[in-house]
């Protein structure tokens, strides 16, 4: 008897609907989030960035 194998989906197998939303183009991103960028800049200061 042939064994039925159910293929499990992995992280990158899922299909998705990507909608480009023009409303998001009008958002001032700097106003939306700035606190974390400041923290990231602090974290990255002096770090050697891999090529």
């Amino acid at each position: 008897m042939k064994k039925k194998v159910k293929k499990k989906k992995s992280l990158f197998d899922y299909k998705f609907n990507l909608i480009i939303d023009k409303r998001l183009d009008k958002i001032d991103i700097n106003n939306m989030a700035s606190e974390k960028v400041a923290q990231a800049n602090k974290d990255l200061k002096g770090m050697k960035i891999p090529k």
Partner: protein
Amino acid sequence: MEYEVYSDLKARSDYQIFEFKSIGKNGNILKGIMFMPTKVQMVYNLEFGDIDKNGKLNYYSISNNDDRDKILATIVKAIDIYTIKYPDRLIYFSGSTKERTRLYRMAISVNFEKLSEKFEIMVKTENELDFTPFKKNIQAKGFLIKRK
């Protein structure tokens, strides 16, 4: 990894912002993923949180919507889409709290094999000026992702 993802993603045309709805026991909560330029050339900071009524990203909110893994998988999906469009850009991220940074480390550890197929994952550790390759149980302060 067999997590579900939120498959309906909205994006800005330059992919700098992604939006999706978390659906769970506490209702529908609008979530945002952003890729913000840093002062370091080609390094972009990944930011994630709830989008509040003023349109601001709230990094510290706790939704308790019982969909943590689904959300993490959706963030990975957004990174995948973003780095397909911008393969030379590096993505830096850290948790808004130490606990969240630890959660991200654990999630990467569990899915490292699968993630490594597409991404090189490096870690910023305390007081080190070099990023080091990701290892399980490494004390991470932040993460740097590069598409292979």
